[in-house]
């Protein structure tokens, strides 16, 4: 065994390119799978404050067709009520406005851009956003359209240089809002729980085209994820009922399988289309497969070229008494060692990436700011040994499979011809 290692080590030093490509290919594949998985996992796995990701649904919008045209838009709150209110299985129905970037300042006139999300009182029950001080705004505040706000801790400090800002005034697009509470920062990993500032949700003014068109995004938490199909069925029935009436006026609502689960919502990329989770999942599998196949192909061709350079070595070993099985075993072990080395390197890269992802990349890309977001997702949320194990396992199996054929061929070479290097 020691000799295997020293021979591999010797080759690494003397054929660095070939060897590093073989090892690096595996490392890269493991790394890419981990990255993809991490990015995926970060968006879907239930974790505080979005503990309800698996049973959360979004009524994304409305697709309304007339005789002479169509509107695709967010819903009005009338529309939300007609489609989703009192649907069996929905525990909480929250009326929200999609987050917008606005100028936020304090008395001291510091003005920065922050993400401001309009929410109602139910929203605070849906998500486990933790209050450092103060409290959320009430149903009354929402009803009366009070100018009150909840602000994330780090943003409060930015504005006031102070943690205790309850009762103080912030200015959103120059309008004064009274701070009722300060919450722990929510990472932008959380599609619906994240914001810098939360204000009472703004009710729609009636729309000239249709009572369904408005500015509301309804968020729902179901009693359990098992009732998802139930809720979908009921909403579909409501579409049909509404369309019967709308048909008399010559218009109709196009049903796109709303409300969406989180996966459907993210998969749709902000479009109001029929979700297609199957093709999305297939797509992910294709990518995984390609990522794992590439290093296998790479190793297979590297193995072939390594073997070609070592035919006479194979012949000599055979002359000295190596059986075909010895030769096959030698190259399998060599590739095993390289695959393991690649896997270890891939794991290290992945760990490093996860750390960086938590602290740097993601906040940058999502918050549009360079600062670190406190309270980002925990390491265990985005790193997962099982996935790593699976990726490493498949890499190993594929690499071994791709070694077997060239190594087997090499082991069948006629020793006399191999020694003299006479072969094709």
């Amino acid at each position: 065994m020691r000799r295997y290692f020293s021979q591999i080590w010797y080759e690494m030093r003397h054929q660095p390119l070939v060897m590093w490509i073989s090892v690096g290919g595996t490392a890269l594949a493991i790394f890419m799978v981990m990255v993809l998985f991490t990015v995926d996992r970060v968006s879907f796995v239930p974790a505080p404050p979005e503990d309800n990701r698996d049973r959360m649904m979004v009524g994304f919008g409305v697709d309304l067709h007339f005789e002479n045209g169509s509107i695709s838009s967010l819903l009005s709150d009338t529309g939300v009520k007609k489609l989703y209110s009192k649907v069996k299985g929905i525990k909480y129905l929250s009326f929200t406005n999609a987050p917008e970037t606005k100028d936020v300042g304090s008395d001291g006139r510091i003005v920065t851009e922050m993400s401001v999300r309009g929410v109602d009182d139910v929203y605070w029950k849906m998500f486990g956003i933790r209050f450092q001080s103060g409290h959320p705004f009430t149903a009354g505040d929402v009803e009366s359209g009070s100018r009150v706000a909840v602000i994330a801790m780090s943003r409060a400090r930015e504005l006031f240089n102070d943690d205790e800002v309850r009762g103080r005034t912030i200015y959103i697009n120059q309008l004064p809002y009274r701070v009722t509470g300060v919450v722990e920062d929510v990472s932008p990993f959380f599609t619906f729980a994240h914001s810098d500032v939360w204000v009472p949700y703004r009710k729609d003014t009636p729309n000239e085209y249709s009572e369904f068109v408005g500015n509301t995004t309804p968020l729902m938490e179901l009693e359990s994820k098992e009732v998802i199909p139930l809720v979908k069925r009921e909403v579909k029935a409501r579409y049909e009922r509404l369309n019967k009436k709308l048909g008399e006026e010559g218009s109709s609502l196009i049903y796109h399988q709303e409300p969406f689960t989180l996966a459907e919502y993210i998969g749709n990329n902000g479009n109001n289309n029929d979700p297609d989770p199957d093709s999305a999942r297939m797509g992910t599998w294709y990518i995984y497969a390609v990522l794992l196949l590439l290093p296998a192909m790479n190793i297979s061709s590297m193995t072939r070229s390594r073997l070609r350079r070592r035919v006479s070595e194979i012949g000599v070993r055979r002359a000295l008494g190596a059986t075909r099985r010895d030769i096959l075993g030698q190259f399998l072990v060599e590739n095993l060692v390289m695959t393991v080395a690649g896997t270890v390197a891939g794991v290290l890269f992945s760990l490093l990436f996860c750390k960086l992802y938590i602290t740097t990349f993601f906040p940058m890309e999502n918050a549009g700011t360079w600062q670190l977001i406190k309270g980002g997702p925990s390491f265990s949320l985005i790193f997962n040994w099982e996935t790593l194990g699976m990726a490493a396992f498949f890499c190993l199996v594929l690499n071994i499979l791709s070694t077997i054929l060239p190594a087997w061929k090499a082991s069948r070479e006629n020793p006399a011809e191999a020694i003299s290097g006479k072969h094709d």
Partner: protein
Amino acid sequence: MDVIKLEGVEKIYRTKEIETVALENVNLTVEEGEFVSVMGPSGCGKSTLLNLIGLLDNPTKGTVDLLGSSTAGMKDSGMSEFRNRNIGFVFQSFHLIPSLNVADNVALPLIYRAGVSAAECDRRVREVLERLGMSHRMKHFPSQISGGQCQRVAIARAIVGDPRIILADEPTGNLDSRMGAEVMALLHELNRADGRTIVMVTHNEEQASKTDRVIHFLDGRQII
């Protein structure tokens, strides 16, 4: 006893276009402890003969008996084991494995032999390298020692498994005359002191004249 016995041996290399008769009706016996040299012009089939005796290739026709037993029905793994136990090879271009150091190169035949412990392997490698005066170069790689030293290491590797037959294909072909003489002296010692049977291919009349018997080949036929 006949250590090597060839009867009616023929070797034909067939490719799609051409057929090369490398050996034709070769009948040859070599006795225990004999030192035989094989001579002949290039392409007359000397290496082919050694490959057949060394079980590295199969004859097209005829039989090869070694150490009194037939090799005709042997399986590939059986041939491997036979080579490992009974035959030591010395090549013109040494054929040391460049990625293994001297000690690891010499150890190869013992690694492919069942039942040799690591400790015994180390002991025998050290012993044989001491005998050939190469023990101070154990950790060197082949690229770090001279050609003459490489051939010494190759001879050490050929005898570490204590084979009764040594097949040497132009063992001095790549060496200058002084180093060639050293290698020849070594082979004679292995023949005389250990009683090993040696078949050596050479182009050197003088070397051949010092062996027990010279066999001449021409165009695949044995002429003397």
